[in-house]
């Protein structure tokens, strides 16, 4: 049955189509500017997925259009097709090959995940406080100084964001860092980021939190360690009592032995 199909030609078309789609899609920078050590790793995973997806998409499209071109009934032809009920080898192939592909994807993703969440010793901890509809930040290593609506972090140093929501769930996202984490009332959630590009970015709330959700933003500044020290030194306010309380009240999500594993 398969022998009657021009398999080599069809595969050639699939390969050419995959190459063409991949070439266009991989050359586009979908996720925007990369400004953390995690960003290029996630974007590379995305690119690998784009190539694999282009292959699957091309395969489906080529199979569909070849069938439509070759096996379309002539006008007035009321006869039936050939009584082919299946092909065990083919069925095993399209069960096993996709299994291998997705397990490869899972393994690759897992290793990227471990990589981007690997904690280092010399990290900076920043407390993130979210409430309808504002962000504020505390620096526990710097005398608990407090900044409203503006987050500063030093370049090339791993930052552990410890998040505390005061009312409903919010979510912390800086697209250029590729990192997102929900802020959940009652628990401490953690995100690990190592910013590696100077600049000013935007912190966006991505969890629906009420009518002010769309405008719940904060300014993010990545600056040299010297500039950062200067900026922190200039902060006079301390983290207010109710927010400081939420740090002690909130519980960690992960049981102690697994806590070290990252977010």
């Amino acid at each position, binding site marked *: *049955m398969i022998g009657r199909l021009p398999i080599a030609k069809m595969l050639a078309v699939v390969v050419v189509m995959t190459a063409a789609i991949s070439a266009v899609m991989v050359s586009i920078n*979908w*996720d*925007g500017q990369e400004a953390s050590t*995690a960003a290029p790793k*996630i974007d590379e*995973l*995305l690119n690998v*997925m784009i190539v694999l*997806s282009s292959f*699957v*998409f091309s395969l*489906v*499209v080529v199979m*569909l259009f070849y*069938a439509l071109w070759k*096996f*379309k*009934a002539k006008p007035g032809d*009321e006869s*039936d*097709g*050939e*009584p082919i009920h*299946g*092909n065990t080898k*083919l*069925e095993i192939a*399209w*069960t096993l090959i*996709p299994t291998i592909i*997705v*397990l490869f*994807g*899972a393994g690759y*993703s*897992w290793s*990227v995940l471990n990589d981007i969440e690997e904690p280092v010793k010399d990290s900076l901890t920043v407390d993130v406080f979210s409430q309808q509809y504002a962000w504020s930040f505390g620096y526990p290593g710097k005398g608990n100084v407090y900044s409203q609506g503006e987050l500063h972090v030093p370049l090339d140093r791993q930052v552990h964001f410890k*998040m505390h929501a005061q*009312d*409903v*769930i919010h*979510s912390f*996202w800086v*697209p250029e860092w*590729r990192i997102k984490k*929900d802020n*959940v*009332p*009652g*628990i401490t*959630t953690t995100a690990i980021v190592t910013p590696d590009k100077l600049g000013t970015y935007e912190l*966006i709330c991505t969890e629906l939190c*009420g*009518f002010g*959700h*769309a405008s719940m933003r904060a300014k993010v500044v990545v600056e040299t360690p010297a500039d950062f020290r200067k900026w922190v030194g200039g902060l006079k306010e301390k983290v207010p009592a109710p927010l400081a309380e939420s740090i002690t009240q909130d519980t960690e*999500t992960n*049981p102690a032995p*697994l806590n070290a594993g990252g977010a």
Partner: protein
Amino acid sequence: MTAAIKQPGWIRGALGAILGAAFGFALVVAIRKASGLPAYQTEQTGYPQVVVPLITGPLGFLLGFGAFDYWLRWAVGMPTIPEDHSQHGAHSWKDYFRFNTDHKVIGIQYVCTTFFFFFIGGLLAMLIRAELAQPGTQIVDAATFNSLFSTHAAIMIFLFVIPVFAGLANYVLPLMIGAPDMAFPRLNALSFWMLPLAGLLFIGSFLAPGGAFDAGWTGYAPLSTGAPLGQSFFNLGVQFAGASSIATALNFLVTIITMRAPGMTFWRMPLLVWANLSTSLLVVAATPFIAGVQFMVLFDRALHTNFFQFAGGGDVVSYQHIFWFYSHPAVYIMMLPGFGIISEVISTHARKPIFGYRLMALALIGIVVLSYSVWAHHMFVAGMFSWLRVPMMITTLLIAVPTGIKIFSWLGTLYFGKIHTYSTAMLFALAFIVTFTIGGISGVMLGMVPIDIHVSDTYFIVAHIHFVLFGGSVFTIFAGVYHWFPKMTGRMYDEKLGRVHFWGTLFGTWVTFIPMHWIGMDGMPRRVADYAAQFGNWNLLISCGAFILGAVQLVFLYNMIVSWRFGPKASGNPWRANSIEWQVSSPPPIFNFDEIPRVVGGPYEFGVPGARHAIMAGESVETPAPAQATTVGSAQ
């Protein structure tokens, strides 16, 4: 008048609704007075004097309407009314507005009701896209915008996609398996009549102080537990839609397991039957979870329980676990019946047996089993126990395998067939394969934790769900409606208008939902009334696509209404299909079959010389070929 009050029907139903609501209201006021509280409570999460009548009013309507008459008489020991089939079948259009126990009437009631809600939900989508066409706020304020997308999603999911499949299967499935009706016809009618009540609660929430529910269709606590009164309408609407769904699933299970015609073994069931068997297995086990979790939210709101209040010892993330333990299987509840439809349409119009029939059925069961183990992939950034992300990622990616089997087997079915594309149903089925593949691909990407961390809660998610739910489910719904329209109405629809509808829908789907992937990856979050100016042009294009998509649905509506009234009469089997529903007249006789058909072979034996699927009453019984005869008899 007294006669009208005694007879079950609309007058007694309206009376029941009023008395039910009055009873609930009086109960609240009396208990509050007795407790020394003011009669009314107007805290935004409370309003017991409104919430309790929202439960008792609809129940009063169902009582008055006659949904419980037979059972109540039996339960209290009164003589039951002998079944004279007076509630069975439709003799005039008025019978479609009655409590009717005929699965064919109920099927049409379902499809018409759900399409009514499809157009309401669509109208809400048009308002959403009008607001989003430009950055800034033009048409609605941010709070109303939140209500718009919440009601849009709730209506489309709970009142369109899930029940329209139940409606189509209600009509087709008993005919397909050679049964005279569903196993429990009165329960079937009750299931249907709970549905419009859920719809009224969702739409009615716009009248509540504080506006319609606005915490998204996901209703995450604690946003939902602190939201205005409209949220309680959602909590209760889900109960009615959910109860309807569960009862129908039980009905399908019993019908499929016990009422197949002699000779219809499990391996001779059409894949639509397999698909509804799988779906029903998901519904009976998963839907109670959303019913439960919405009650927990309602109790947190009205009774100050602390399920999700961290200050009272509750756990916020547990809402999401319970919610998604239903709502991920729900994705397959919204997809598997569509898979069944596509199998029927493609096999019939390609004149070919389904490629790998048994693997197709097993893939459905594989999806059912796996779908219970993937829910937390909606929560990769939710702050849950972080180790859980990896196993959930692996199961999520693995579920692509049975789905891929289905895609490749449909393609395999086309090969060496005689593909006819004159039917709009087939066009939708073929287009479904491509659009659904795209939704599947983005689903695999989302299953990968590192990618999901970046695109979670962005427009990429909006793109993905619309590609699977619109490009997937809704395409299969259109395929199913066009395919069985001649059977259900006894008329043919207009293929020219069908083609306009098809090409417009295909074009609109791609223009609307493809660019959403891009803006999502580039930084546009979902569920926002306003966005950064850099996304303005893409959003304008998306809105234009959405308006085309909306407008072209009116062509479908016109085609359906006019063809139902004036279309040329349909023969019993216009598509020359094999399954049993096509071997009776269009529309089928009131009790489906004069004599139960006898099944002698598989449902897709196109091109097999001398093969038969079923022998109908009055047909000359030829001796079936020996190859077919060997497996007869294991079902009955």
